């Protein structure tokens, strides 16, 4: 039994970041990279299935689409107990949207043939909430998103899960396998990867594949393979919030005034 976990090395913006010269992204030096928080939960969910299964061995394979620096993220996953890691990169993949990335992940999934493919519900940087579900479409696998609970016993032909809807309502569903499931925060408590484990994981190999290895044409990725294209990135006008300045006491006084006004109106 195999679970493929798609993970992303996301970026957060550093202080005083600057937009790139071409206006389509932030200067790379201001990008602080890390494992996507949602993917941490989906890897943990895979590890739980693996560790709870005694009769049937479960292999957890992580895959990430990204340049060499994404190895750091994969190593973190290996440190947490993933059996293998695959990284796919090719310069042609640059400027891919989530659907183009999904084409590459789908190719990896065809090659690995897992029973389950996990992805985070979304990524913390661009929040498309699209990659996992698009991968399912390209594979023509059943799929479900925003899982907050999963019950699956290796060997079973279906998996039961709950997704969390607006207002906290839960929807219990069941899916045939193989399937793509996207995992929501809070489904579990991701384990800690100690630095010792991360250092030891440095010895584990990461399979690096090219598009050719996966027989994905360059036209299927990058701008050509994408369904959207970034035209411009800019820092929005600092909201519409009217900032209250002054000492803490002065600020508090003003807030209390606003509360009284608004509460009066509300009541």
């Amino acid at each position, binding site marked *: 039994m195999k679970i493929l976990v798609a993970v992303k090395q996301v970026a957060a913006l550093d*202080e005083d970041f600057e937009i790139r010269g071409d206006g389509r992204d932030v200067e790379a030096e201001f990008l602080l990279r890390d494992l996507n928080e949602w993917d941490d939960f989906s890897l943990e969910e895979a590890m739980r299935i693996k560790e709870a299964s005694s009769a049937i061995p479960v292999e957890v394979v992580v895959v990430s689409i990204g340049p060499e620096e994404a190895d750091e993220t994969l190593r973190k996953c290996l440190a947490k107990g993933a059996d293998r890691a695959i990284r796919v990169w090719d310069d042609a993949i640059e400027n891919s949207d989530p659907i183009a990335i999904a084409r590459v992940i789908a190719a990896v999934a065809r090659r690995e043939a897992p029973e389950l493919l996990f992805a985070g519900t979304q990524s913390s940087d661009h929040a498309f909430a699209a990659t996992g579900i698009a991968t399912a479409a390209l594979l023509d696998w059943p799929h479900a998103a925003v899982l907050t609970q999963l019950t699956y016993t290796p060997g079973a032909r279906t998996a039961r899960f709950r997704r969390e809807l607006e207002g906290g309502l839960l929807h219990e569903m069941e899916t045939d396998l193989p399937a793509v499931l996207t995992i929501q925060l809070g489904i579990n408590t991701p*384990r800690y990867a100690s*630095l010792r484990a991360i250092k030891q994981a440095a010895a584990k190999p990461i399979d690096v594949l090219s598009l050719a290895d996966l027989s994905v044409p360059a036209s299927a990725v990058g701008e050509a393979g994408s369904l959207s294209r970034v035209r411009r990135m800019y820092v929005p006008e600092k909201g519409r919030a009217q900032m209250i300045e002054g000492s803490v006491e002065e600020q508090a006084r003003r807030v209390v005034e606003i509360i009284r006004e608004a509460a009066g109106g509300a009541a």
Partner: protein
Amino acid sequence: MADSDAVTRVLFEDFAPSAVRLFYAIGYAAIAVFLYGVYAQVRKYRRGAPAGIPLNLWPRLESMLEILLSHRMINRRDRKAGEAHRLIFYGFVLLFLGTAIITLDYDIVGPLFGVHFWHGEFYLWFSLVLDVAGVMLAGGLLYMMYRRGWLKPPKLDYARPDRAPTDPDYDRSNYRREDWAFLWTLLAIAATGYVLEALRLVWLQGRPAVWDTRWWSPVGAALAEAYRSAGLSAATAGVLRRELWWFHGMLALLFIALIPFTKVKHIFTAMGSLMFRDPQAAQRLPREPADLPRAGVQFITDFNWKQLLSLDACTKCGRCHEACPARAVGAPLSPRDVILSLREFANKTLGAAQLPAQAELDVHGKAPGQVAMETLWACRTCMACVEVCPVAIEHVPIIVQMRRKLVEDGEMDPQLRKTLQTIHKTGNSFGESRRKRAAWTKALSFPVKDARKEPVDVLWFVGDYASFDPRNQKVTAGFATLLHDAGVDFGILYDGESNAGNDVRRVGEEGLYEVLAEGNINTLSGATFNSIVTTDPHSYNTIRNEYPDFGGQYEIEHYTTLLLKLMQQGCVSVSRQLDLRVTFHDPCHLGRFNQGYEAPREILKRLGCELVEMGRCRSNSFCCGAGGGRIWIPDPVGAEKPAQNRMREAARIEGLQVFVVSCPKDLTMFEDALKTSGLEGKFVVRELIELVREALIQ
């Protein structure tokens, strides 16, 4: 005086040869039991890991003997018990030497060379000294009984904060029984010795060589006079003496035989523990060899032999229990109980003839002898226990090594886990961007040198709290101004600095510590400077004591000594006396860890402050509760925090105006605690730097 040869004690006088042979047989049996016991204990220690320390026995022996003979460790914080122990110790040693001298005369040089020296004047002095020794021993023992039976100090009640009364290993009655048995046995041996001596005098009252010299054994002689006046005849005394002789002899042999199996073994284990102690045990934690199969300590066999030996040295004196800040606020930790649990565990597993399967050697958990994670995480690594232990037990490394295993398994508070991840990601515990580390310098009216780009005399390692915490930033800017105005050529590392790692290491995240230490050393090696200064005692400790293990040798001082020098040199001159009634809180990492007690006090004096010490000061300073990573772990809701406990202590000082700290974390902890303990308004918490700045204002 009678003939010198006759002035002695005839051994086995009036004993049938078969009786003497029987005594020797029993004596050899006792020694055999003793030796087997020693073997079993040594086998237990050898089942531990190698200690990897240089043996250099002579200097170790010397320093051990110095502590042993001076009793300076055991005298601390419990003077009377220490003095009573001194009496018992010296009494016991003299009596032991006396027995050894008799054996030397009677069993060795006598039979081998026909030489006897145990008679005449030597014998008389010998008698006198041993009589006095007996009084010392008995006196010490009686005080100890009085202390246990009547004074009943709480540290001896063996109440366990880490167990509930319903737990199988909560009950400590066996320890209590053993304590009393130990005292009574020794006292009985001493008392029967005197009675024997007296009976012998009465029995041999007709023999001038005995009777005329009786006052050389004053206690025995006095008793003998009493027996005689009570009408005891020589013949009856002879019979009684023979019966009692056997009782006394058997008791003594039993005592010897049982040494390795009872608390008596501390005679040896304490000496061993003192000999192999590490004077830097808590200041410089052990490195984790790269080839270890697992992180830290999981199994009892992961402790090294020296640690296992030191577990057996514990005499349950309770000094650590009393000093522990976690215990003081009701946390489920007593350093004593950690040691006793592990000792019980070692005895059960490593003490067995066959080493049990590995699964039974796991020291983590809640079963008898195991240590619960709640206990390990309660520790502040403040070193109060290590510092006060009279037998050199090193609790903090033991706890941290066990934590390393917990960290590896992720068995920690979620907030701590998050903080460690944050530190790994951003290099600081605040989760702030590296670029913001020197943001506090923007408020200054002068530029601060980037020590990576230009040489400086003094490199200031700022540390996380001083860099990022808004309240501390004001102090940090104040210190920068002080240095600048004093003409000190200083610089900082800007975004090249990372968390120094002191607390990360004490949490047990050794891998992350290595990353931080190596990163900082790498940055420092690219800078040119003469010495380092820091306002943060935590950074100070690890850079001073632990970075050398990673190749970083620096001259570093805490700001208090630098500031004092600047004041002495007149570079910083006080323009007015503050006239404040203050108390000073010794930060663990400055005081206990690195003996930086005097400089802050000297500065306070120069500021015209009246320093009133708290009861717990200097080496007995009470931790603010932030150490060992506890600043990143939420304290239980509702329970008292160590810092609040400290605020209440300070509040007892009549007319206190300022509670002075010299550590960024202390400032945060105590300002919070002052508010939450309802003492706000009674006094204020200030950094020493702030007082100095105030005293500069004309």
